[in-house]
């Protein structure tokens, strides 16, 4: 019989220390992320058993307009043991604590994989007219652990937040990842990872090399150059860019935790910046986080070159996974999102589905009003 879990707020240092003991955690669960989301009140919480920290979480409190009630949000968290069949023991003290802090609802994104698909399956799915969504393709694997988490969350009254079609407001449920170790945890060779990519990717990486594209790590001062290109990309691809200060804050906060936590990558061709990216790594998990590319000189393939540099760096740092983050579920060849999937799928690897984001209404009346407010805001 194990002693029950208790929960209390912990310091940023305790929080960081625990994460370093784990193979990995989402970067959205590091205490540094709290400084990036400065408009939210943040709190580090820790689960204790027999006096030891056994789990942590970064809670972001978002205040409702006019009332002192909050949505307590744990993006891609918390960092606890999700494999057991007693989630209630973990979640009950957390919910009780958050309720005392004024939360009218709790939202979290269990970092638990529920399904996987191979790149080849996705490619066949896009080619097949009868397949419209990733879920229409038989998965390589349905995770028992993932299904157990979902079953328990239903049983405990949590509600899954579904996002049909495109990206949801929160963190993406479907992601694309390149495993950097094999099934037994043995690191793959660069050659092996290259071989996993499709022909176009391999050709483009070679082409960039031949055309003289040079990829290098940037410094904080280079964020301005990254940002200029990123704003250019935003105009071209019709998304709203974040301000430069957002990236500076992120760079400073994450960089303070670990010198390799956040990296700026720049691909230049004859002095012109043709692609720039931001990568993040926590333990064995490396993410491609933000990317920008020039409209001119697309033929030199700066984007492929910079991805390959990030992958090699992740491998050298001992990462197990290179994560290209969100993809939409659509495999419809006519959907505008499918191009992004195809770019990511070209790296080989696999699509993974996470358990998604879940809400537990604590105060049902306010939660209903909140949902109404969100719906009206569109």
């Amino acid at each position, binding site marked *: 019989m194990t002693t029950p879990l208790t929960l209390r707020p912990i310091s940023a240092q305790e929080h960081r220390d625990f994460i370093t003991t784990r193979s990995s955690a989402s970067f959205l669960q590091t205490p540094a992320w709290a400084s990036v989301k400065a408009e939210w009140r943040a709190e580090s919480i820790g689960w204790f058993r027999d006096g030891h920290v056994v789990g942590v979480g970064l809670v972001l409190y978002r205040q409702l307009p006019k009332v002192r009630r909050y949505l307590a949000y744990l993006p891609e968290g918390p960092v606890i043991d999700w494999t057991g069949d007693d989630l209630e023991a973990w979640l009950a003290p957390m919910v009780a604590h958050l309720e005392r802090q004024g939360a009218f609802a709790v939202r979290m994104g269990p970092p638990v994989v529920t399904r996987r698909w191979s790149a080849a399956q996705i490619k066949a799915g896009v080619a097949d007219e009868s397949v419209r969504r990733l879920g*229409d393709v038989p998965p390589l694997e*349905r*995770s*028992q652990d993932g*299904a157990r988490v979902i079953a328990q969350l239903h049983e405990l009254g949590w509600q899954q937040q579904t996002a049909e079609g495109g990206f949801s407001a929160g963190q993406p449920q479907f992601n694309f990842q390149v495993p950097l170790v094999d099934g037994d945890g043995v690191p793959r060779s660069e050659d092996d990872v290259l071989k996993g990519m499709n022909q176009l990717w391999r050709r483009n990486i070679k082409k960039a090399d031949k055309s003289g594209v040079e990829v290098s790590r940037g410094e904080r001062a280079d964020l301005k150059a990254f940002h200029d290109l990123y704003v250019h990309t935003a105009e071209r691809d019709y998304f709203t860019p974040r301000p430069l200060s957002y990236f500076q804050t992120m760079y400073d906060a994450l960089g303070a935790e670990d010198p390799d936590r956040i990296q700026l990558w720049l691909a230049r061709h004859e002095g012109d910046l043709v692609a720039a990216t931001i990568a993040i790594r926590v333990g064995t998990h490396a993410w491609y986080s933000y990317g920008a590319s020039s409209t001119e000189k697309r033929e030199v393939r700066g984007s492929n070159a910079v991805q390959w540099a990030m992958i090699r760096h992740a491998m050298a740092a001992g990462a197990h996974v290179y994560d290209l983050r969100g993809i939409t579920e659509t495999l419809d060849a006519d959907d505008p999102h499918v191009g992004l999937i195809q770019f990511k799928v070209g790296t080989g690897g696999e699509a993974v589905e996470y358990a998604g984001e879940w809400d537990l209404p604590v105060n049902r009346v306010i939660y209903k009003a909140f949902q109404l407010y969100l719906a009206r805001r569109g």
Partner: protein
Amino acid sequence: MSLTLTVDGERWRRHLLATVEKQPGIVPVAKGNGYGLTLGRLARRAQWLADHASDTGAPLDLLAVGTYDEVEQAASRYAGDLLVLTPWRPFGAALDLDPRTSARVVHTVSRVEDLAALRERDPDARFVLEQLTSMLRHGMTRRDLAAAAEALGPARSGLRGVAMHLPLNTTSHLGEVSRLINDVVASGLSTRTVFVSHLTGAELAGLATSYPDFTVRPRVGTDLWLGDRGALAVTATVLDVHEVERGDTFGYRGRSAPKHGHIVVVSGGTAHGIGLEAPTGDQSLKARAATLARGGLDAVGFVRSPFSIDGKQRLFAEPPHMQASMLFVPSGARVPRIGEDIDVRVRFTATDFDRVVVG
């Protein structure tokens, strides 16, 4: 002289073939009174469907019966495997199976302890595990399934799938089925076959899309055997007719006629299920109002009967007898002649016919 179910054989068989073709993996259900057609006839017809697999493109390898007592009747007429829908228990008829047929039986197991007991008795037993649904009848919870998975281990076992008995909802079953299938994954059971009932064609198609790695097998009874009502006609024979004046007494209970008319004696009584109305389950306002109205008729004396003459439903002159019923036909209406057949509206699952004639 009898309560007769006449089947337009050509049309009925066409419907059976079409239904099987539309629902690959179908498990026909033959239980109880055989939906009025008798269990033996349905078992033979299932064999006929199996023999026509090359026409329908839908192999039929499994027939579901309701209880262990029904196994023998079906087994002698149908050559494939037999799924027993009533959960196996370590007592009763389940233990008395003929060893020659028991090898063809697929059991339904709804309790973890029964799984151990069944496998102890018969290590080669084949079975499906029943999941507890919102019906809360029989079945295993998620943790029960996990315990079953643990007990079975990764080795090959007799596990043939998971069964769910869903309520007859008017709303969609998909939410519940998705959760139940997720529970199967969570349990770690090695099966990817699910037996379900009462899903619409659209719901089955939806499941096939969402769970392309699962085999969803629909269990179908009513929609298969009785799905084309136009192919089925139920008739009773007029056995006798007596003219009565107002005040004349008649019947077992010496009732008196309210006005001039005819007492018409027809075949079909309580022995056939006539007058023993099974609740329709229809809880609509209209249905409840109809029940009230019938009660009202009862109060003034006569109750509406399921027999109709020239398209008009007639009243019972008194409660039905074991094998015949007395109807009241008021003056002015046509009086049927003796030997004539009249229509009867029945619930097939609650009626035993004297004769089933398949044309």
